[in-house]
């Protein structure tokens, strides 16, 4: 006695998927109508499709959604950084071509709250009373907060020279107290090899952007270089907020 003929499952799957031409499809369907095993295969494929379609759709988990938002924030931050760099040609010395090249390079994005950290610290800034005596070359910041709190100087770009003169001998470099980080930062903004010794430094808010003001030597007696970099500046990238030469 011969074995019963088994249906061609792949051909039936092709029928099920709509791959066969209308004539072949009609012939196979007619065959299925009178052949139980063939019909069973088509039913099994239909059941499989139904089971797949009945799968519940998992919702995007909130933590993943938050990660995506953070990642998009970083992209925004990087775009703003690039825009700030492009808009600062007047704040940089014409002789510092290297910093311009650095500015055009893509900077690695770091923490998710990077941009927020760069926003002016309004709470701190509101308590500051800055008394500038530009003519005398001094700029003094008074904090109304607790004694010993680190004075953060809020200033405009045109006050930088006065602030720089007052910063010589000050060593409040904040995150750039770490010499390795400072060295990496200066390298990243195109100032490698011109950083030692740092003659002074303090944390500032320059035109609304938190940063660190550094006073660097130039090798010429009485001539200094004032550099302001963003607070996140380090070996993985940084932003040069200002770069100016002064005569002391």
């Amino acid at each position: 006695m011969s074995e019963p003929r088994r249906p061609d499952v792949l051909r039936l799957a092709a029928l099920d998927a709509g791959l066969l031409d209308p004539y072949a499809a009609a012939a196979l369907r007619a065959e299925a109508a009178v052949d139980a095993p063939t019909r069973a295969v088509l039913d099994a494929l239909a059941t499989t499709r139904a089971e797949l379609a009945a799968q519940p759709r998992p919702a995007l988990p909130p933590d993943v959604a938050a990660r995506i938002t953070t990642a998009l924030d970083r992209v925004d931050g990087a775009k703003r950084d690039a825009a700030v760099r492009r808009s600062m040609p007047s704040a940089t010395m014409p002789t510092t071509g290297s910093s311009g090249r650095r500015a055009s390079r893509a900077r690695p994005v770091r923490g998710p709250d990077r941009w927020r950290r760069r926003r002016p610290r309004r709470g701190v800034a509101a308590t500051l009373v800055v008394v500038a005596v530009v003519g005398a070359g001094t700029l003094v910041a008074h904090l109304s907060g607790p004694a010993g709190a680190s004075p953060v100087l809020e200033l405009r770009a045109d006050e930088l020279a006065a602030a720089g003169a007052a910063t010589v001998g000050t060593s409040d470099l904040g995150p750039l107290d770490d010499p390795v980080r400072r060295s990496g930062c200066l390298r990243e903004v195109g100032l490698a090899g011109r950083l030692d010794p740092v003659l002074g430094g303090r944390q500032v808010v320059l035109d609304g952007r938190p940063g660190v003001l550094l006073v660097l030597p130039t090798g010429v007696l009485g001539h200094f270089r004032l550099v302001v970099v963003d607070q996140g500046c380090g070996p993985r990238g940084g932003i040069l907020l200002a770069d100016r030469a002064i005569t002391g």
Partner: protein
Amino acid sequence: MSAPARSDVELVAAHRGGDRRAFDELVRRHGDRLWAVALRTLRHPEDASDAVQEALVAAYRQVDGYRGEAAVSTWLHRIVVNACIDRMRRERVRPTVPWPEREIAAPDPDPMVELTTRMAVDDALALLPVDQRLAIVLVDVEGYPVADVAAILCIPPGTVKSRCARGRTRLAVLLGHLREVDQ
């Protein structure tokens, strides 16, 4: 009276114009489906999370790459699918095993046999080759029309159907609706 919801194309245009909330709205609108595709393709939440994030950041940055030739959702799905494929190629994420060629027959008449051979759908999907898995996930699980899936995968509609046919056959066995026959 609230403003009418903007279409996907309008949201893309707004994003190009600098409206950050526009892209957030696209993510809210399509995030679940993109996540589902990535999760079912890669199977592991960490991998899927990375792939979706990577894809959406790429879409956010390269919105000019969307030229309106396909629906915005198709464009987003294509980017997510490519991110999934890249991830699997790069990291050889949970490679599938080759399926031995066997003859397939109608279901076993014994329901107990059927029950013991059944697999969970997600487990069964994971055993499909990636090209079949993607086609099945998009067509059968997510319910996209074949033409849309062809656009997402950048392949002819006939190839989508062919991959679905092979994938369904294998799934039908794994899910216990068909049985393999030892030759």
